[in-house]
Structures are given as C-alpha cells and as structure tokens.
C-alpha cells in the first residue's frame, strides 16, 4: 500500500493520544447541501468518519406512485439540479424500455448532446466546488463563468437553465431550435480554449497539486466492492464506463475515449480522481461535435418524438445510465396502469458518500474537503 500515513497512524496509536469527534454539518461550508460528517480525529489525522444523510428526504419514490408517467419528468429534474438532464433521460429511457419502443434516431442524438452539455456543466460545478473547498475563489468563479455558456445552451434548447424538463417518453420535448448547432459548436470551441486557463491555475500550481496528491488512496477492489462509481472509480483503475461498455441510446455510434488512470497499479489518489473529470469534459466536447454532425446529417424534418401509449404493461425493468457523478439506475415496477407501481432511483452519490469512511481514513483534517469534493456531493439525489 502506497499510503505513507500508515506508520504515522500506528505511532500515534502507541502514544495513546486523546481522540475527538468533530461534527461537520449539516450546515458547514464544506458540505454542499445538508449532510453531516462525523469525523474522529487524532491530532491532525482523521481515523474514522461517519456520514449522516437524510435531511432532504422527500419521499420522491413514493410520490411518483401517485402520478401518471408524463408528470414524473419534471420531478426527475429536481433530483439533482446539476444533472437534471441525465435523470430525465434515464427516466424516459426506463419507461421506453418498459413500453418496448424504440425512439427515433434524431431524438437519440439530441439526447446525447443534451446529456453531454449536462455532464460538462455538472463537472464545471464540481470544479467550482473543488476551488472553494481548497480555499481559492478564483477557480470557483472562472468555472462558473464557463458553466454559464452551457446553461445558455440549455436555455436555447428548451427554455430553462437548470430544471430542463426536456426529454420525453418517446423522444424529446422539441426539435433543436434554429442555429442551435452553430451555438453548440461555438460554445464547445471556446470552452476548450478557456478551460486551459483553469487548468493552468490548478495543475501548474504546486499548492493545488500537492494538496491532492498522495492522499486518500483507494484500490480497485475497494472501489468495486464499496460501490464507488463514476469518475472517482475510474481514477482508481476500474476500466468501466456505461456509455462504452453497456451503451444506451446511440453512444455506441460515437467515438470517444474513456479516461482511466492507474490501470496497472490499481491504486488511485485524490488527484487521479480529479484528473479524470477534467479529461471527461474534453471528451464530452468531442462527443457533442460528433452528435451535432449526426443531427445535421439526419435532416430537419426527421421525427424527434413519437407517440407513446399512456399505460405501461405490467412487469419490471430497469434503465442504467452514466450520470456525471457515476452509475445511476432507475428500477421500474409497473402494473399496467398509467402510474408506476414502484420507481426506485439508484443515485451514484448515495453509495459514493457511504464510502467516505474509507476515503477519509488517514487523511488530515485539512484534506477532508479536498477528498470529499471528488465525490461531487449533491443531496437532492442522495436523499431523494
């Protein structure tokens, strides 16, 4: 194990020092939302962590059992304000699977574009949070500035910035608007240039890098077993991306790389998890370019939304999708009516935050925000 802190911890145990529980949250600058992290500290080192969630539990899944299928889509936006598009997409995809229908090609590509816009803006929100967690507000504001261009794309596409309510069962809400292709390509091009400024600010700064390096090591086995998914998992050597390995919609027809680090060593630190997300943003730009070309090739008058029955046949099914934060799954049990019998959401953060004990063990208190920033906390989907 590459963890250099283990001998230190062992030495401290022999010294029989006093241990102290420090409770961070539910209202704390590091917790982006309402949750509590109980940390047991021994001097500067964390030796135990106990996350407490549930302050935002709204009974989302129960509430859906009370609504018809179309009226759940705006609720899916409220699961996570950053990944609203992917959650609506996931929901619609699950219902389409239950209905056994295939949606038009154009809708698939529009969904890919919308998803990747959502991924970039969600990752930028995460980058902003990393900046503030490390004590630098410049990164926060620069990342927010870049994010604004992608939110503008959302506005152009469907009229809302964050709660998009865009995918529909059987397609998407509306066709791409006039000049949307041009705007997307422009936004992506300028983003790829502007992103380097933020990278210079973080990756060329010894302070940022040395704060993230060599802390919070996780092995591949740990990640897989604990259920840590998403970019955090790929930083630790798990070579798995649902977009590539279990493709949905038309992700198998676009060409992109899945950034994976430490494939051989199978141990990743905090900085590896950080780098994966930055590279993912660039890859998303590539996907957007290809998908926009495909949309252009399909033509203006192609169908983008098909009519679907309101009643879903009885049975169980599930959809699986690569959220910006990890693997999200919706499990739908239907009973033949126009309302779901049970709809379960597997949010990536819910499982990722349960790994915080393994992630925080052995790091210094000052590193805890940096380590937990890598799971990109979002409480709306955690507590549901």
């Amino acid at each position: 194990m590459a963890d250099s802190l283990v001998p230190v911890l062992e030495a401290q145990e022999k010294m029989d020092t006093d241990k102290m529980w420090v409770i961070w949250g539910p209202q704390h600058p590091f917790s982006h939302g309402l949750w509590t992290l109980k940390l047991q500290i021994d001097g500067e080192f964390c030796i135990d962590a106990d996350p407490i969630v549930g302050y935002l539990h709204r009974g989302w899944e129960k509430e859906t059992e009370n609504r018809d299928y179309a009226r759940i889509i705006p609720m899916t936006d409220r699961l996570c304000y950053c990944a609203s598009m992917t959650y609506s997409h996931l929901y619609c995809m699950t219902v389409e699977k239950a209905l056994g229908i295939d949606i038009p090609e154009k809708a698939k590509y529009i969904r890919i574009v919308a998803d990747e816009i959502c991924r970039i803006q969600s990752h930028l929100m995460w980058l902003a949070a990393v900046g503030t967690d490390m004590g630098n507000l410049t990164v926060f504001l620069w990342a927010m500035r870049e994010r604004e261009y992608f939110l503008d794309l959302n506005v152009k596409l469907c009229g809302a910035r964050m709660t998009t309510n865009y995918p529909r069962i059987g397609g998407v809400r509306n066709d791409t608007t006039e000049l949307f292709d041009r705007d997307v390509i422009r936004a992506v091009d300028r983003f790829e240039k502007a992103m380097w400024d933020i990278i210079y600010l973080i990756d060329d700064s010894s302070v940022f890098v040395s704060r993230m390096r060599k802390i919070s090591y996780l092995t591949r086995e740990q990640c897989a077993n604990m259920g840590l998914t998403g970019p955090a998992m790929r930083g630790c050597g798990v070579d798995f991306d649902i977009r590539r390995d279990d493709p949905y919609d038309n992700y198998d027809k676009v060409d992109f790389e899945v950034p994976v680090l430490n494939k051989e060593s199978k141990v990743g630190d905090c900085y590896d998890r950080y780098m994966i997300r930055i590279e993912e943003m660039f890859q998303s730009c590539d996907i957007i370019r290809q998908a926009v070309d495909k949309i252009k090739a399909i033509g203006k008058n192609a169908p983008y939304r098909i009519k679907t029955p309101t009643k879903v046949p009885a049975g169980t099914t599930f959809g699986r999708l690569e959220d910006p934060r990890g693997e999200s799954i919706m499990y739908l049990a239907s009973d033949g009516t126009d309302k779901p019998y049970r709809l379960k959401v597997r949010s990536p953060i819910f499982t990722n935050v349960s790994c915080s004990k393994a992630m925080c063990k052995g790091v210094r208190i000052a590193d805890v925000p940096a380590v937990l920033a890598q799971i990109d906390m979002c409480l709306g989907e955690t507590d549901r």
Partner: protein
Amino acid sequence: MAEVYQSPTVEEIQSILKSEFPEVEILETKERRVKAKCPREKSHEVCQFIHDNLTFEHCSVVTAVDYVDHLMIVYLLSNYYNGVMIDLDVDVPDEDLHIDSVTDIWQGANWHERETWELFGVVFDNHPRLERLLTPKTYEFFPFRKSYKMRSQE
C-alpha cells in the same frame, strides 16, 4: 468450487447458474441482461457464487417492491468487465420479512439494505448496522409500503 469466469456472457451465466443452482429460475435474458429468480434460503449462497465465480464485483442496487402479499427483494449486480447485469429477484413472504444480508459480500450494499429496511421493513440478517438512514429515528412505520397511504392518496 467451480472455476472463475472473469467476463461471462449471458449464455454462460444462464448455463452455469442452472447447473450450480437448480433452484434458480432464469426468467428472461436480453442483451447484457439476465433476470433470475431465487428462493430466499439460497439468496446469500447465490450472491456469493455470483461475486466469487462470475466476478460480479459491484452491487448496484438492493431494493424491494411491495406486492402486498409478498415483498420482492431485487438485487441488481453488475460486472465491470463486460457490462452484464444480473437482476436477481427474491420473494419474501409478508409474514416473515427476513433475508440474509449481502453486506459481507459487497460493502456497497450496506446503505441500500439500510434504506430498504427503513422504507419497507425487511430485516436483513447479519447486517452490521441496521439503523434508520433517511427517515427520522422516531419513525415506527415503513413509509414505502403500499399500506402506508400518503395524504394525497386518501
């Protein structure tokens, strides 16, 4: 024990599961999806086998569906080498809501099982810490059961 398959295909999974566990019923297979049904007594053993021999390293979801007379516990297990998922359903009768915990196999199932317990009342035996997670500690009912009506449903 049987040999270890790193990335078993759907057909392999089907045949292996049938030969190893005759009780396990394969309901449906699709591309990269296997849906199986398993009796309650065998569930832990089957999960252990799927984890050890079929290399399903990741437990995505543990959840339950309340069919009033019985509860169906659903395990969604995924393989990181080829993206195959097994949907393992276990029926638990309403009178005796007990099932073996799989937390010792997949640590990631810990919170999912806690959540399922607090929302449906299924007791996961041998779970390290079966406490309320999302709902307040004072709750004495299981809100996601069909018998629990929401205010708007009444």
